[in-house]
């Protein structure tokens, strides 16, 4: 069932990590770099399918979601993007960059109590990325980055649905700690490349670009038509 049995001409690169780990910045810079070099590249982010977004927004705003429906609605969003964008692009020979991938669901939804086996089977149609960069940051540093800006934490983002604490900031701390544990338990299972997210942004990006060049023959991804 796992899609990796099929050889595809494209490459899949995903970034994962806690909120505040800097992963979105890093993948954005990778995107800019590959575009500027004239490679066939496409960027997609978690929870962005236009069709499913309405339902997700409503569910979150009105706090209608349970761990199961929270998980399913994100899987619906993912399947929509996967089957309409990612997979066709991989077949067409693109480098597909994903800001968050199925591991976000594995870590968050398992923290919410979803069965790990159930989650893995549900996402069994999705390829394991060629490169998964996990931006690792000590919990207090990640929390500091998010909390220092006096953030408007959202209900589900802070794991308030789990009843960890009536205080939203405290709930966020506990929730993020558990999500981090889930991530760490997947490093070997899915072959994450662990990045030290405490380093300066530029130093991290240099490493990321080197790693991508080592693992992917970029010459194969030059645009076929001049535009």
């Amino acid at each position, binding site marked *: 069932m796992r899609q990796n049995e099929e050889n595809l001409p494209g490459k899949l690169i995903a970034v994962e990590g806690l909120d505040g780990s800097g992963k979105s910045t890093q993948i954005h810079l990778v995107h800019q770099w590959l575009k500027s070099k004239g490679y066939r590249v496409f960027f997609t982010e978690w929870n962005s399918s236009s*069709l499913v977004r309405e339902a997700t927004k409503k569910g979150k705003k009105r706090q209608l979601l349970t761990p199961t*429906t929270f998980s399913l609605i994100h899987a619906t969003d993912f399947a929509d993007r996967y089957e309409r964008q990612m997979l066709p692009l991989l077949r067409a020979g693109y480098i597909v960059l994903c800001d968050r991938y199925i591991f976000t669901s594995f870590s968050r939804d398992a923290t919410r109590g979803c069965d790990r086996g159930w989650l893995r089977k549900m996402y069994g149609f999705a390829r394991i990325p060629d490169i998964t960069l996990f931006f690792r940051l000590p919990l207090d540093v990640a929390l500091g980055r998010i909390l220092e800006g006096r953030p408007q934490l959202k209900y589900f983002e802070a794991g308030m649905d789990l009843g960890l604490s009536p205080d939203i900031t405290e709930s966020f701390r506990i929730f993020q700690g558990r999500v981090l544990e889930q991530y760490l338990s997947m490093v070997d299972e899915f072959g994450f490349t662990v990045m030290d997210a405490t380093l300066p942004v530029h130093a991290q990006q240099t490493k990321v670009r080197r790693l991508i060049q080592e693992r992917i023959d970029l010459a194969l991804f030059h645009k076929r038509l001049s535009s």
Partner: protein
Amino acid sequence: MSAQRFYHIPPPGVDASKLTGTLIVLEGPDSSGRSTHIGLLRQWLEEQGHAVAQVGLKRSTLVATELEKAKQGNILSPRTLSLFYATDFYDQLENQIVPALRAGFVVLADRYIYTLMARDIVRGAEPEWVESVYSMALVPDAVFYLMVSSKTLVDRTFQNHSELDYWESGMDCGLGRDWFGSFLRYQRKIRQEFVRMQKRYGFEVVNANRLIPALDADLKGRIQQVLAKTEKG
């Protein structure tokens, strides 16, 4: 309920204890008479003093509207549609079916996971994948599959709607450009899938080619037995 249980494990946070109600499912294609018979059953059950709750597909607070919109556009991939329906199903399971069963209601479900699974499998989904998605569903006390011949189905569909439905004709499945031909092929595939599932899930297949009063009496007789069994506990 007698042997209240879930196919695999309950959804997280769902307390499966003390579900004293009874879950009865009617399955069958459109125009097989499901909603007519559910209406009759409800009235009869209430006359006997049972509190009744009705559920069906695409009725969740969470995604029903969006799901309907998505279906109109016909632009979701089959897997996306599967997962969207699964979201709708679990929303109702957790927020309607389980609470009603805990309150001791008889829950009449106008279709359940089997229709959803059959549709997905006919559209090429891997059976193990679909079964896994629905593995946290509650096992009903009884499932009645209203089996109708294609001929009766066609007659009733034209009588009720004067045209064939896009999805019930499987027009998204590439079975042919002719709606009538596609309808017959699609309904046959669904029926075959139900027959396959019947062994696994133990449905009671009832002949729904009959007139309403005959089928009504048959269903009531069967449900009486189910209730007698669950009430004895």
